[in-house]
């Protein structure tokens, strides 16, 4: 069981009205934007379940948009996130999907396009009390929460890739708390998620990319 802090009880400090529909939405979007090189130019949110039904009254839309611009749960700018996004030249759209029901009730798919034209789709679930998890990246089932410093690699499923990742982490004296691997198939696209204690050192991304099979490295600091 993970540690329950006094600030998990008295917290999060948040813009209302709902820890799951507002604060959780901020958290998911804020995590998602850390996975793609800034600046973002376009974002599309597909809302499922209770998110789709009650997003307007809970400010879920403003919360998601605030999160995608990097605001934290207690940032009052969330109220004005529509205007701020327009001022920044960020295109946005919200699509409620009420037909898909075999899904966690507070789920959102976030499709992002950055200035370089790269796209990424991230699925997040809001679990209550402001806790969230990312469950898909570009359609691949994954799982991480952003509570720990995390490094995520997108690579080709080949021998030695994981050894390279652990060697680099070892060289930087990073302690691995959790490590998970996902792949679409043998030799196909794969993801590795490593969660560690403390903050990850800045130079880690370039060294990880030195392996020819590693295509992309995402670093999420807590």
């Amino acid at each position, binding site marked *: *069981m993970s*540690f*329950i*802090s*006094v*600030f*998990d*009880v*008295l*917290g*999060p*400090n*948040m*813009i*209302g*009205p*709902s*820890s799951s529909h*507002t*604060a959780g939405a901020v958290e998911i979007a804020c995590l998602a934007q850390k996975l793609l090189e800034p600046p973002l130019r376009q974002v599309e949110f597909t809302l499922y379940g*209770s998110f789709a*039904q*009650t997003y*307007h*009254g*809970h*400010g879920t839309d*403003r919360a998601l948009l605030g999160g995608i611009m990097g605001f934290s749960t*207690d940032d*009052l700018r*969330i*109220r004005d996130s529509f205007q701020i996004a327009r001022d920044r030249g960020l295109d946005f759209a919200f699509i409620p999907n009420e037909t898909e029901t075999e899904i966690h009730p507070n789920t959102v798919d976030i499709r992002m396009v950055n200035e370089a034209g790269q796209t990424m789709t991230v699925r997040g679930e809001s679990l*209550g*009390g*402001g806790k969230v998890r990312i469950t898909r990246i570009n359609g691949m089932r994954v799982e991480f929460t952003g509570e720990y410093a995390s490094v995520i690699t997108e690579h080709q499923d080949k021998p030695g890739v994981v050894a390279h990742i652990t060697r680099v982490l070892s060289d930087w004296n990073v302690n691995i708390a959790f490590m998970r691997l996902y792949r679409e198939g043998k030799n196909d696209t794969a993801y590795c998620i490593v969660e560690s204690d403390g903050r990850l050192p800045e130079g880690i991304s370039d060294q990880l990319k030195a392996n020819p099979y590693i295509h992309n490295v995402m670093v999420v600091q807590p």
Partner: protein
Amino acid sequence: MDFKSGEELLALCRQENCPISRIMRLRECTQGEASPQEVEERMSQVWNIMVRSAREPLENSLRSMGGLIGGEAQNQGICGPVLEKAITYAMAVLEVNASMGLIVAAPTAGSAGVVPGLLLALQETYDLPDSWMAEALFNCGAIGYLAMRNATVAGAVGGCQAEIGVAAAMAASAAVELMGGTPEQCLTAASTVLMNMLGLVCDPVGGLVEYPCQNRNAAGAANALIAAEMALSGIRQLIPLDEMLQTMYRVGRKIPVELRETALGGCAAAPSACRRCGGCNS
């Protein structure tokens, strides 16, 4: 320094000869990631946000996102100072919350008014220093932590008794410590609240954190005050907090799904509520 139950918490209080707040603070500083100074600063920020959210609507009433509440945080004056203030502040925090203002979830956003409502009422009425309020919040945290660890604080899992019920249990225990009670009396007060709010359903109109949530924050603050008064006057309870948390959890899981935050039953399904909401097709 850690504890997993109310019983272990009381044993630590006896062993260290200190109040619950002290044990909870030590737990945070020894088991958590933050330094004692960071913990201190974060808790004082929590109190500052709580106080601001309790006072703001008294000067400028705020309209909620869903349009169901706004302007209720007014004082009529028949309950005596502590309860009048507690009701007003508890409702004020929900007004701030429902209008996308800044609050502290305690333990949830929908129950965020109870703890600041009662604690601020006590501080103003009895002229208590801010340093005491930080201690009271650590006491609250101990009760909320036990509820999160051993039961639930989610309305979708356990109904309103898990949200407002737990918030009121936290507030009651903190009130007892603030007013000079013993650790045993704190847990007795928390247990009393859970007993008195057992079975309360979560039935938000339109699925929004507005109505009846705001009313129930006032009711939670009142229940907390009743339980604190009883515990301080020496009334004991047959059922200790640990058992009461399990009881609340078991009852919560037996509450039908229509009455656990789905907005399909209870107040949410009353004809007037449906007319006002007009949200679903059923």
